[in-house]
């Protein structure tokens, strides 16, 4: 896996908010098909890191290189077309749409028809719509929401909403998928289902970057775990080795039991 060049390379990444250094000199690599977990205590800079890689926040130093292309200067909406797609920790569905339509928004940058073709009502634009709907249905099936295809998103439970987030992100055909605390707020059985989904996403060759609070969830799932503390990376290794790392143990002193249980 590591024999190839990493899909995502982060070098010297930093973000300052006024005098506060939220993230400092961060290096990360993620390979295709790999699951990288990022953990850290509150205020470690996880969310800031996530936002920068997702394109929602511009770094103040360092660079993000995706598939050999530097992402500096790429607008926020340019990340999904290039293959970096995220889910939200607090589900952000499009409330006025059905489950299927929500997923179809994910295909936004993959739709082949132009505005002119749509206005003229050409056969090819109608066909593209039908294909998009069929593809959305198969993604809805994949995450296990088949019976809700035509449902209003308001009728979904929190856990189902999380699954919708994933289906919508997959619709954008990502090569790197970013999960922002995906297990937060899920029941044990929903967590298990989520684990299966993340594993099968990675098996498709999609790189996965997970930011998590739930140690147990991350430890069993991630190929590699990077630990942040006070905006710096203090460890980056397999889950088992990270747990033995003295600095990590110290940083997590309060949560030591969590780590051991993992």
């Amino acid at each position, binding site marked *: 896996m590591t024999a190839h060049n990493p899909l995502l390379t982060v070098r010297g990444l930093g973000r300052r908010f006024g005098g506060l250094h939220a993230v400092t000199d961060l290096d990360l690599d993620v390979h295709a098909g790999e699951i990288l977990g990022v953990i850290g205590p509150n205020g470690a800079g996880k969310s800031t890191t996530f936002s920068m890689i997702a*394109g929602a926040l511009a770094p103040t130093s360092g660079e993000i290189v995706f598939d050999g292309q530097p992402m500096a200067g790429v607008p926020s*909406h340019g990340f999904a077309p290039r293959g970096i797609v995220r889910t939200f920790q607090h589900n952000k569905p499009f409330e*006025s749409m059905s489950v299927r339509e929500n997923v179809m*928004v994910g295909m936004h940058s993959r*739709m082949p*028809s132009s505005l002119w073709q*749509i206005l003229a*009502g050409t056969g090819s*634009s109608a066909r593209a719509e039908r294909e998009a709907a069929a593809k959305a249905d198969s993604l809805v099936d994949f995450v296990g929401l088949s019976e809700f295809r035509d449902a209003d998103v308001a009728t979904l439970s929190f856990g189902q909403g999380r699954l919708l987030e994933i289906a919508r992100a997959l619709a954008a055909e990502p090569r790197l998928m970013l999960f922002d605390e995906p297990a937060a707020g899920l029941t044990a059985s929903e967590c298990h289902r989520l684990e299966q989904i993340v594993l099968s996403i990675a098996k498709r060759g999609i790189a996965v970057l997970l930011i998590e609070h739930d140690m147990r969830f991350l430890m069993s799932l991630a190929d590699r775990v990077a630990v942040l503390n006070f905006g710096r990376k203090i460890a980056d290794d397999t889950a088992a080795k990270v747990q033995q790392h003295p600095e990590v143990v110290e940083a997590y002193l309060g949560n030591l039991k969590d780590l051991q249980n993992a």
Partner: protein
Amino acid sequence: MKSLVRYIVAALVLSGVAFVLGSYQTDVYRKLLLWITLALSYNFLFGICGQVAFSHFAFYGIGAYSVVIFITQLALPLPLAVLATVALCVALALVVAIPATRLAGFYLALATLAFAQLFIVVLNEGGTVTGGTGGLTNYRLPDIFGVAVTGPWYTVAIVLLLLGTFAMLWRLERSWFGRACRAVRDNPDAAVAMGVDARLTKVLAYTITSALAGLAGMVYAFVDNTVNPAIFSQESVFQLLFMVIVGGAGRPAGAIIGATVLYLLPLVLSPIIGHHHALVFGLFMVLVVIFQPRGLIGLWDRFISGRQHRQAQVQLRKAHP
């Protein structure tokens, strides 16, 4: 194919009506069709994209004035005048949209309201070009291929305008563009994360709907063969907003119902209660907003879902007596 048949049937029925109406009824019918056309495009901008813009009626006026000015003062042939008017509407829409779509909600409303006011000022102060407060009169539609399109045949042209506008907006709404418009309204962050360029989407939606309003204005110009500032006053701006809200914002069927009810209401009421019809109108508005925020189309939805519910219950009772 099926939808094409539906459009043809609708065109035949709506056009057929034009041939049996008297002259007063024809006038009412034509203006009703134009109001519906305008409400449809405004529904897309306000109801679907969530842009609280008050410039829609101004673009209707810009379309009407421009086509007349291009034909009578610049002596352009009709097809060129139409193209030039559309181009002008698109250009002006971009000039308004590019700065205005940076604003949201209240501020967008203010900026577009200012634009609409400015348009009225320009009409009043435009000298011989706009004809000042008296507007422009004494012109007529140039012959098309040597044929004077008048009477019911001009009503047919309005029907085609309505159906063309409806078809375009219907397709837009059911495309990636329509989904992007709603996504930007529902949750801009999530829309951007899915690759939607939020600003471009807003600018395009504003420009397309404003151009459609301009197109309707062009057709309006030859209904009365007179255009003046009073026609495009603020009253009509809000009338349009109320039509979409009363019908049910975001729903084309709502726009059609809203435009029909609010346009015909004063015509029906004023012979009975005179100017008090404005009072009824105000009361009606308040009642709808308080008790039926989804508009009249929401009542219909409730009726349908209620019936489905009852049918399901009847079947359940049959299955388990």
